[in-house]
């Protein structure tokens, strides 16, 4: 098991190597491939922390990742950083994914909390956007009235995000960014957020346990966790190969590791073990011809998940009573 981890670490460091691993093609959208590079530093850093075990310091993550990262990768991130907001550029798929994920987050939060204010449905809620990148998802949520904190270990992305939101007085007040990792934040902000959003991040983390534990720490009881990621199926592998071959000409070979994908059942089990209960899972699909995402029945390729942190520790004699709660009105089982 450790040898596997070391192997993955070795592979990660040698991103451009000819290491024959057919499972590392980017899946479905080049935007995700490029962004995966950025979030990949998160996973590298997690690995680093795991190997060093304790001694988490409050230092900025940058010195660490710069020493372990390939400088070519860093340059790639910096080149990409300015492209976050080019709507027809490499991140077009992420921008169009907002059509699905913003209503998903908004409606589920409204189900739980009710409408706060007309025109600002999410007013008064504190939301953490993990792996925010250029702020593609943070800005719409900020416009809906929520107080957003976006974190990303890549400082250039955070800078781009700050600049982009600085012009709009609405966003200036409500959206903040910080270049750090989730673990660093988890120490400061215990039970500070109403919701955590980790969109297209989980498939790049090596240590999901640490991630789930940190999410559990920063969320208020009853808070929501939203995850969008890729499933670990033949279909997601096949689409990855096909799409990547079409895209290979355009994007430097990204590193989506099929091994790191996680299926909804496994993710659900993991989250349940950390004190969440999964409220909704929906399948998503990207159409490269129209550039649009759509909901679909099957979670075979992409899916979105909504989990809620349990309000109290489940007692053995109350487990049965807890399962009754799964049918409470807050559960969003279907919506258009």
């Amino acid at each position, binding site marked *: 098991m450790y040898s596997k981890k070391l192997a993955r670490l070795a592979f990660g460091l040698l991103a451009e190597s000819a290491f024959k691993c057919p499972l590392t093609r980017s899946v479905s959208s080049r935007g995700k491939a490029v962004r995966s590079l950025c979030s990949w530093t998160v996973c590298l850093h997690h690995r680093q922390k795991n190997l060093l075990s304790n001694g988490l310091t409050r230092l900025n993550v940058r010195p660490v990742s710069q020493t372990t990262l390939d400088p070519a990768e860093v340059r790639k991130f910096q080149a990409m950083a300015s492209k976050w907001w080019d709507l027809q550029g490499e991140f077009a798929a992420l921008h169009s994914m*907002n059509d699905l994920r913003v209503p998903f987050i*908004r409606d589920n939060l409204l189900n739980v909390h009710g409408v706060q204010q007309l025109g600002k449905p999410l007013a008064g809620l504190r939301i953490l956007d993990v792996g925010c990148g250029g702020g593609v998802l943070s800005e719409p949520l900020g416009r809906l009235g929520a107080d957003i904190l976006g974190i990303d270990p890549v400082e250039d992305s955070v800078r781009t995000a700050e600049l982009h939101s600085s012009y709009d007085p609405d966003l200036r007040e409500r959206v903040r960014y910080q270049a750090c990792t989730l673990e660093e934040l988890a120490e400061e902000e215990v039970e500070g957020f109403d919701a955590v959003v980790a969109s297209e991040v989980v498939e790049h983390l090596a240590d999901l346990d640490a991630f789930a534990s940190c999410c559990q720490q920063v969320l208020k009881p009853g808070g929501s966790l939203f995850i969008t990621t890729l499933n670990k199926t033949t279909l997601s592998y096949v689409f990855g190969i096909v799409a990547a071959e079409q895209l290979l000409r355009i994007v430097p070979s990204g590193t989506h590791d099929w091994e790191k994908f996680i299926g909804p059942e496994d993710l659900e089990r993991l989250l349940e073990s950390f004190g969440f209960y999964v409220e909704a899972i929906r399948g998503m699909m990207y159409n490269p011809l129209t550039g649009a995402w759509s909901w679909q029945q099957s979670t075979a390729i992409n899916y979105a998940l909504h989990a809620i942190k349990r309000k109290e520790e489940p007692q053995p004699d109350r487990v049965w009573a807890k399962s009754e709660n799964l049918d409470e009105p807050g559960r969003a089982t279907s919506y258009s």
Partner: protein
Amino acid sequence: MFTFAKAKLAVLGLGRQCVALRALNGAQAVRNVRGFASSERDEESSTSENEPFDIIISGGGMVGTAMACSLGLDPNLAGKKILLLEAGHKKEMDRVPETYSTRVSSISPGSATLLSGLGAWDHIVNMRCKPYNKMQVWDACSDALITFDKESLQDEMAYIVENDVIVAALTKQLQTLSDHVEVQYRTKVVKYTWPRPYHISESIPWVQVTLANGKTLHTKLLIGADGPNSMVRREAGIPTVKWNYDQSAVVAVLHLSEPTENNVAWQRFLPSGPIAMLPLSDTESSLVWSTSHQHAEELLQLDEESFVDAINSAFWSNENHSELVETAGSLFRTALSVLMPDSGSARQLPPSVAGISPKSRVMFPLGMGHATEYIRHRVAIIGDAAHRVHPLAGQGANLGFGDVAYLTKVLSQAAFNGKDLGAMQHLLEFETERQRHNLPMMAAVDLMQRLYSTNAAPMVLLRTFGLQATNALPPLKEQIMAYASK
């Protein structure tokens, strides 16, 4: 980084302000400063004053004011800053004036629904409005005619309302929304500055609107509702397909010879152009006579009596009939009545005119215009700025209100999804949908205008048969009415 940038901009702004104060020609310097560095000055001055608006509507006519009301009332847009700019003065109407104004519009049921949703329809009904139940359209060169009416003549087909009444009613509604919809009257725009389509640091990403009084406003979305000679459309460089009909419309308010149940709209196609009489009340009607420029000027010069005679003869005389066409027409009508016995309508004559309201004769040129694009990044155009039609079908205002309804819907949904209001994605949706609706209507109106502007026998025969056939097919007429009522 952010604070550094702001500090840098502030310093630059201060520097430029000093330059402005020291310059001899104050106005000149201010203009220079503004043109080059308005962003810096804005950063520097009080933030609430120069914060960008969410939406600025340029043009406060019927369509512009309706748009402002509609956006102001939308729940998803609550809290957004909206501004309406109008070059004229505020049109208020506590009591309706005795005399009717000459510019009127035919309001379809769809537009009436929109106006009642805005709360303005009640004001209109209380002020003055005339519903009509039937429309008769007939040819001067033949006996062909077509009538439109609802199944039971009790239902109203559409409404004739004076333009001033509509604007006053909407203005009244707008006053109730004054907490987040601001209106500036007597405000002229001299310049628009467009943002770059892609984000460049250190440049303002909003539309800049420069007013005649020197102020510069910023907005995330600019809506151009400034009429057929739209400055927004021109400055945005949107290519427009347009041509002038060699026609002008003469409008007047007519007094009928005797009071009658005036609930029919009449339109007759003369070779020189259509003449229409639209009911305003039991004793008065509105005239819209489209004819050549020369004839229009002559009509304006005539004394009242001759003018009235000209109108009556235009509606009643049969001098343009030719034997051939009459025979052919009546044969066709007989054939139709054999096939469809219930079809066909008896020709009625419009009421005769006795006089006109003093000083109510006006003329204005007619043309057709269609903007090839209704949108740009952070810009949308609606109403006559986007599409200008011949008044013969009474659809100009209705198309504009249709734009208002759909654009509000699109912006409301975008705001609910947290989108930037000026983003192209939802604006494209608006453009596609409205062009799909407007283009066929405009093509049909233009076709009608061309078809009926000649008295060459083949065309006359063609349109005679066409009109009679359409009149004989109630389902087809219903389709036409449904399309025009949206």
